[in-house]
C-alpha cells in the first residue's frame, strides 16, 4: 500500500442517501425478493396442477397471517419493481435524464407503487377472496 494519504472515492457508509441512490438499490433489493418470491408462485402453480387437495393446502398457506404478510410484501415489491422498471426503460431510450426529471419520476414511482398496492388490496378484500 502507498504511504501517502490519498483521497478515496466516497464510501457508501458515509455517503448521504439521495433519491437516486436509494431507489437504485431498492430496485435491486426488490428484484432479489421477487426472484425468490417467483418460486412461491411456481409452488402455487404446481399445487393447482396437482389437484384440489394440494391446492387447498396452498390456499390455507396463503390465507394464513404469515402468508398474507408475505403476499403483501411481494405485491409491494412487485409494484415498485414494475414502475421503477418502466422508469429504467425510459432511460434506456434516452428519456428523462435531467436531474429534476429523475427526481420527479422517482417520486412518481414511489407514489404509484404505494397507491397501486393499496388499490390491489382494497380490491382483493372487497371481494372477500382468499388472496
Amino acid at each position: 500500500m502507498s504511504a501517502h494519504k490519498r483521497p478515496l472515492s466516497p464510501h457508501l457508509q458515509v455517503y448521504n442517501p439521495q433519491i437516486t441512490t436509494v431507489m437504485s438499490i431498492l430496485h435491486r433489493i426488490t428484484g432479489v425478493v421477487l426472484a425468490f418470491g417467483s418460486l412461491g408462485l411456481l409452488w402455487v402453480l404446481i399445487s393447482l396442477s396437482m389437484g384440489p387437495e394440494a391446492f387447498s393446502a396452498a390456499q390455507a398457506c396463503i390465507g394464513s397471517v404469515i402468508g398474507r404478510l408475505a403476499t403483501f410484501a411481494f405485491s409491494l415489491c412487485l409494484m415498485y419493481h414494475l414502475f421503477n422498471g418502466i422508469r429504467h426503460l425510459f432511460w434506456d431510450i434516452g428519456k428523462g435524464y435531467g436531474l429534476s426529471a429523475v427526481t420527479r419520476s422517482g417520486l412518481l414511482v414511489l407514489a404509484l407503487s404505494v397507491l397501486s398496492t393499496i388499490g390491489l388490496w382494497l380490491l382483493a378484500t372487497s371481494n372477500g377472496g382468499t388472496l
Partner: protein
Amino acid sequence: MKYRNPLANAHGMGSAKSGLQHWWMQRVTAVVLALLTPYAVYCLARYGISDYAQLKGLFAQPVFSGVVLLYVLALFWHAQLGLQVVVEDYVHSPGLEIALQIAIKIVYSLASAIAVIAIVRLALSA
C-alpha cells in the same frame, strides 16, 4: 488509441458479439413482464384464488394458458439474469461466485421446466 489487445488483432475476429445479449434479453423480458403484470395482478386481486374449479377452467383456454406460460418463462428468465448480475457485483470470492452462478442457472432452468409441465398438464386436463 487502440483498445483491442494484440491477440484479438491476431485472431482478427472482432468482438465475440454476445456482450449485448444479456442486457438485451433483460429488456425484452422486462417489456413482456411490464405488459402482462398489470393484467395478472388485477385478475388475482379481482378473482382471488378461492375457486379451484374456476382457476382450473381458465387453463382450458389455450390463449390463457399460453399467456401464463409466456409470463412465467419471461419471469424466470428475467429473475435469472438479474440474480446473475447481483452475484457478479457483490460476491467476490471466486469459488462461492461460481457455485452461486451455477446454482442460479440450475434453479431457474428447473423452475421453467416444472412450470411448463404444470401448465401443459393443467391445459390438457381441464
